[in-house]
């Protein structure tokens, strides 16, 4: 069997590469990562020849500027795997796009150039002599419009020709004689140590440019390196310029000569539609309001409304009891169900009262009990008396059957439960499937609808060109704590939910910024943390107004501090190269591309994040529902479970934070499934009830026994900042594409949370007169370390920056 043929698709960002890739491969695509980096790798089978793979390289402007994307692309191109390069260039911006082409032509592989956006080129009045261009570049140059699907047949024909080995190798540009002779000398110098390869010329030029990556790859002996260095310096002295600038200039001059002969007409001058849009959109005065409106819409639609509704439907309907088809019958049913709930509470309260009085409830005609209704975070909402007549009436209220109110579709757990019961499955397996696996799958899939909506908007913003403007507008703010404007969207979305927030980091181009954003975005107080804040505020601070804002403030401060502190470490230190951002022309995106990008990202979440979420879910379910009782592992109440044992064993760790009792530790661990579980666990552990309905717990008083205001706030701080829920950890794992970086991220978050809570609690305790001197000293020391890390000068600051400031 012959080896599979691979074609590498290379081109600038915004050149329409994804659209062309989709057009050439259709649905036969797979998405993964390049090994070891967060860069996405897409491959697809050519529609015209299915044993031929098209490999989508990351969008790059050059092969030699040193970014991760460029290294990935270069490594692949010289790996010997691809037998042909398809280079897509933006016809409306040939000058810069051909820069990469000149580098690709040196790799010793046949190249096919596709000039994209020919429809736009024609509209602006440009005319390009492509035959002339092809002759000059000595490779086929074909006009296409990936958006309209024009020119694809001719392009495919050229690719097939290339696969059959019928295309000549492109003739690389020649440089001025002095540089050429230096390249020849370098070739002589490395010949004894490095065997000649097809992409020899590219390698020589890289060595001439002192490309660190190439030097490392060749591992030249010191003698050879210094001889090369001496040779480069001679050329530099001759031209009074450095090697990198020389090569770059020569390339651009060659391109300008090329275009001078092949560009027949140049219809520039008038403002394009894109220019006119940009005049408004990034206008000095209007930019921020427009930006705020766009962001509000994205957030509102994907987190609050459309996405939120779908997520609620997935969690409570599809993976809950069930749902009404198209919502019909929901209102009537809800009303009846509320009546039923009130009746249940009346019965419970009356029977308790009767039992306390030593009476039979049925016969206690003179007894009156009271029902108190509590709000979501435990505050009292309403109370009403229950008389004997009310009690009897309540006994007659039946639980409404949803199927009687409209087209009712039972949820997955209900269906699975029916199937399990029909199959007479044993108890533990029943529980494992239902409470472990189905709940876990639900936890994974529950996020998907919200993500689909968000990813739709992200793809739309990227494809139309506004994403780059967001970075342009927000860069000033984010740069001051070590990130760039591109981090804005992940942070914004994380205030709703860290899972799509972390996944949104995919749109950040710089790998270090991406890692830093992924590591810090989960600090944001997401929707699930709000009930925790509300509970603490209600139970220990009498619903003081400042608790929630201060929690937000602490979270945002955590992001700022982490940004500044981590940026000073080598692994996160800013790219040595400057931050450059192309502001592409505004374009109407192709619906197919937007939908495909949306589905791809959602699928990659399910596939790559799903497994970790599911496993963790099953583990915590097991640990909370099972325990060691009567010499065997069996189902037990939560306070006797393995988790409670574990909580007691490690609770001493949290004593310095002021809450070293096992209940708080267990609540924190169950919070890893979803942060709002902290509230439910508190309900169980402090309420003392076997079952706690959301509106009926009386745990405030019990909590006050275990917590002081100080330790409760410390607990809140820790839970806001420590490692996020499993779903978010799964998303982090997906984006970091490395177990090491994932562990670093959650380790850092937890460590940071611990230190902050400790400092807060110990200093607070000292000032309120209950602290210990050792705790105070430790807290001061940690605070000192933190301030040092925060304020020390950046050791990785690049020198160019310092001299460039005027």
């Amino acid at each position, binding site marked *: 069997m012959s080896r599979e043929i691979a074609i590498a698709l290379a081109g600038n960002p915004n050149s329409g590469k994804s659209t062309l890739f989709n057009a050439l491969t259709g649905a036969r695509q797979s998405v993964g990562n390049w090994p070891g980096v967060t860069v996405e790798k897409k491959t697809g089978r050519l529609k015209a020849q299915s044993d031929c793979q098209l490999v989508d390289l990351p969008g790059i402007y050059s092969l030699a500027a040193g970014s991760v994307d460029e290294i990935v692309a270069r490594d692949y191109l010289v790996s010997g795997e691809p037998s042909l390069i398809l280079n897509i260039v933006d016809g409306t911006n040939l000058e810069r796009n051909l820069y990469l082409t000149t580098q690709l032509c040196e790799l010793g592989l046949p190249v096919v150039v596709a000039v994209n956006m020919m429809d736009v080129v024609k509209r602006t009045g440009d005319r390009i002599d492509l035959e002339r261009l092809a002759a000059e570049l000595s490779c086929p140059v074909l006009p296409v419009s990936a958006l309209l699907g024009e020119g694809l047949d001719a392009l495919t024909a050229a690719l097939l020709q290339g696969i059959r080995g019928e295309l000549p190798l492109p003739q690389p540009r020649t440089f001025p004689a002095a540089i050429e002779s230096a390249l020849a000398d370098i070739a002589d110098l490395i010949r004894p140590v490095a065997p000649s390869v097809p992409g020899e010329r590219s390698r020589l030029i890289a060595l001439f440019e002192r490309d660190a990556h190439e030097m490392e790859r060749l591992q030249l002996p010191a003698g050879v390196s210094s001889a090369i260095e001496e040779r480069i310096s001679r050329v530099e002295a001759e031209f009074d310029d450095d090697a990198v600038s020389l090569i770059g200039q020569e390339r651009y001059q060659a391109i300008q000569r090329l275009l001078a002969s092949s560009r027949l007409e140049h219809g520039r001058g008038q403002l394009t539609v894109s220019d006119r849009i940009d005049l408004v959109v990034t206008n000095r005065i209007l930019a921020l309001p427009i930006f705020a409106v766009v962001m509000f819409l994205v957030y509102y639609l994907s987190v609050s409304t459309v996405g939120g509704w779908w997520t609620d439907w997935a969690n409570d309907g599809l993976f809950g009891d069930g749902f009404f088809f198209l919502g019909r019958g929901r209102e009537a049913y809800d009303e009846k169900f509320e009546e039923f709930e009130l009746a249940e509470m009346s019965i419970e309260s009356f029977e308790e009262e009767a039992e306390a009085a030593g009476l039979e409830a049925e016969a206690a005609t003179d007894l009156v009990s009271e029902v108190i209704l509590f709000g979501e975070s435990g505050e009292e909402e309403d109370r009403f008396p229950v008389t004997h007549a009310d009690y009897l009436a309540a006994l007659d209220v039946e639980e409404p059957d949803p199927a009687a109110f409209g087209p009712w579709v039972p949820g997955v757990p209900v269906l699975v439960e029916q199937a399990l019961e029909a199959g007479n499955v044993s108890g533990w397996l029943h529980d494992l499937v239902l409470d472990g696996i189905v709940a876990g799958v639900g936890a994974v899939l529950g996020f998907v609808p919200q993500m689909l909506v968000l990813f739709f908007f992200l793809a739309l913003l990227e494809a139309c060109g506004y994403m780059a403007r967001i970075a*342009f507008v927000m860069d000033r703010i984010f740069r001051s704590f070590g990130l760039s404007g591109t981090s804005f969207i992940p942070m914004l979305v994380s205030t709703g939910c860290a899972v799509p927030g972390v996944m949104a980091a995919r749109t950040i181009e710089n790998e270090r910024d991406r890692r830093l954003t992924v590591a810090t975005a989960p600090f944001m107080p997401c929707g699930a943390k709000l009930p925790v804040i509300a509970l603490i505020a209600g139970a220990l601070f009498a619903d003081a107004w400042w608790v929630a804002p201060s929690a937000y403030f602490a979270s945002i401060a955590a992001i700022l501090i982490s940004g500044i502190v981590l940026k000073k470490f080598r692994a996160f230190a800013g790219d040595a190269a400057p931050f450059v951002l192309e502001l592409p022309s505004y374009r109407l995106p192709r619906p197919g591309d937007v939908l495909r990008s949306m589905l791809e990202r959602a699928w990659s979440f399910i596939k790559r994040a799903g497994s970790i979420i599911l496993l963790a879910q099953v583990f915590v379910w097991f640990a909370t529902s099972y325990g060691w009782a009567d010499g065997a592992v069996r189902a037990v109440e939560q306070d006797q479970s393995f988790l409670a044992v574990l909580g007691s064993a490690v609770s001493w760790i949290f004593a310095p934070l002021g809450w070293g009792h096992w209940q708080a530790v267990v609540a924190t661990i169950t919070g890893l499934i979803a942060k709002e579980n902290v509230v439910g666990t508190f309900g169980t552990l402090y309420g003392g009830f076997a079952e706690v309905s959301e509106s009926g717990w009386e745990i405030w008083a019990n909590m006050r026994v275990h917590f002081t205001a100080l330790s409760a706030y410390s607990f809140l701080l820790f839970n806001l900042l420590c490692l996020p829920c499993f779903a978010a950890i799964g998303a982090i794992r997906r984006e970091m594409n490395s177990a090491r970086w994932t562990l670093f991220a959650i380790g850092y978050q937890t460590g940071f949370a611990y230190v902050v809570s400790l400092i807060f609690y110990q200093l607070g305790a000292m000032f309120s007169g209950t602290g210990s001197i050792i705790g105070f000293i430790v807290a001061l020391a940690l605070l000192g370390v933190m301030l040092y890390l925060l304020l020390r000068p950046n050791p990785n600051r690049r*020198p*160019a920056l310092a001299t*460039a*400031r005027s």
Partner: protein
Amino acid sequence: MKTLAEVQIGDRVQVRRLHGTDQVKRRLLSMGITKGTQIELRKVAPLGDPLELTVRGYELSLRRADAGCVEVD
């Protein structure tokens, strides 16, 4: 030495030389900024940084600090 960071909005300037490390130069070169390139400062972001430039017929955004590496006439 006048740099790109000191140019006024609407000004067209010509690049004289690139400064900074090889990394800085590589990145600037890959975006089309070389000796002799015409650059126009189109506008400044609402918060005063970064800059929006027209280089070789397209729009490029550079931070002020990085624009300081580009010496112009």
